[in-house]
């Protein structure tokens, strides 16, 4: 079917490739998964079949609560997880963005912060977990702390890099046109730094999800990470696989939402 159409010209062929290429590897992996399960190459106790995972997902998302183990937990888990990500990411933005902009513009601030922050950055997040448990106990606060800590660094570094590479004529032009310092920050510095700031925010949100799961593995009653951990306890590999897919999907949706939401800024739309 496709071959006569594709041979008609370069343009449709190119368009078909543009549409098909991004899905080629996922579709291939799915096909392999199907075949490997159907032929028994992959035993179900290592990786359940796609149908089984889909069934588990259906139960987890749509079945009435209590009708089966894990049934109907999705909304509560996803809500709890998103709340923790929002809290931690929000904290990281509130601290990382202003500190990053300051350190990108003022050598004194950079000298003051860089040694400490780069030292802390070298510590893997999981090393903070025991300390966080001592400080905050099990639950919301520990997870928010881990998420905020992890998301802080990319946001800080993005803002600092963005502020540092702003064309030095831009602040001068703004000052010459009569703007005071505070207005310069919001109307010149931040827009000019925006491409790097956006990159930092996206990386920050990405690691926020990674540390969300880490924080939720510690015995909290709800959340997507907790669901995975509970599933492991009762040997439900299908639910573990489902959890991984759901976290991937929600993480990707949040990234899209972030990029889309940031488009209220002219500098994001036009730079």
């Amino acid at each position, binding site marked *: 079917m496709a071959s006569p159409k594709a041979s008609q010209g370069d343009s449709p062929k190119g368009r078909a490739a543009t549409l098909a290429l991004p899905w080629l590897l996922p579709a291939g992996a799915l096909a392999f998964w199907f075949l490997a399960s159907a032929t028994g190459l992959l035993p179900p106790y290592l990786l359940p079949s796609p149908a089984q995972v889909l069934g588990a997902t259906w139960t987890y998302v749509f079945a009435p609560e209590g009708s089966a183990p894990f049934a109907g937990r999705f909304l509560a888990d996803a809500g709890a997880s998103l709340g923790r990500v929002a809290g931690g990411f929000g904290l990281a933005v509130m601290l990382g963005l202003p500190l990053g902009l300051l350190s990108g513009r003022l050598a004194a601030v950079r000298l003051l912060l860089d040694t400490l922050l780069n030292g802390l950055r070298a510590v893997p997040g999981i090393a903070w977990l025991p300390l966080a448990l001592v400080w905050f106990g099990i639950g919301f606060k520990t997870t928010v702390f881990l998420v905020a800590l992890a998301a802080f660094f990319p946001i800080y570094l993005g803002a600092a890099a963005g502020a540092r590479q702003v064309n030095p004529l831009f602040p001068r032009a703004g000052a010459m*046109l009569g703007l005071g310092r505070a207005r310069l920050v919001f109307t010149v510095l931040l827009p000019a730094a925006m491409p790097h700031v956006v990159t930092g925010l996206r990386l920050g949100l990405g690691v926020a999800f990674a540390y969300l799961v880490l924080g939720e593995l510690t015995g909290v009653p709800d959340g997507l990470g907790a669901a995975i951990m509970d599933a492991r306890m009762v040997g439900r590999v299908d639910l573990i696989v489902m959890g991984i897919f759901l976290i991937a999907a929600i993480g990707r949706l949040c990234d899209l939402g972030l990029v889309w939401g940031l488009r209220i800024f002219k500098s994001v739309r036009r730079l």
Partner: protein
Amino acid sequence: MTGLGGHGEAPCLVVESLGKAFPVQGRWIKALEDISFALRSGEVLGVLGPSGCGKTTLLNLIAGFLTPDAGRVLMHSRLVTKPGPERGVVFQEDALFPWLTVAENVGFGLPAGQGSGQRRERVSRILERVGLTDFGRYLPRALSGGMKQRVALARVLVREPRVLLMDEPFAALDAQTRAGMHELLISLQQQLRQTVVFVTHDPEEAVKLADRVLVLSPGPGRVRQELGVDLPRPRQTDSPGFLRFKRAIHASLASG
């Protein structure tokens, strides 16, 4: 055309024994030393000199971007300490805000207090003056070099500056575009009578535009020669008087 306060009026811009040094690899290098001049309102000064003679530093000091190590800058008898819209600057390279349209760039410096209708009105009037009426909604990156410099001029003019500072504003343009910008600048300056200080490396540009020319010597920058260009306007670039001034400036640049 030369001298200061020729008619008993106070000078618009006074530069008094200005000096500035910069640290280079741990040592202080003097960029400017003992520069003095005074400009009457509406006078046009061209600053010429070889590269590294501190021309841009001089302009940055008058603009208030830098603080002098010695001497001072006075505008209407008030000490200049920081940049301000009464001293508009047109930069050498493109310094328009790339995330704003042409109209938004031009309206950027207008006080927020005015109504949006009044702001739009002022922006479109200034865009018409620089010949960019139809380009208000474009982004700077869609414009040619000459059009960008027109926008740069417009965003400064909208604040009605009494002093216009220009750092080789037309150096990056081709000869024909540059000639067009000269015409535009001369006609705007004759209507609005700003005091202008412009930096250039082109003697012809200096003689074409300036009432007075300052030739600087390098390392550190000092005033080597000051010429009053008392040619009638419009100036013909091939008239004997024009060529005489051009030769004088070339000779001054070549000496030492």
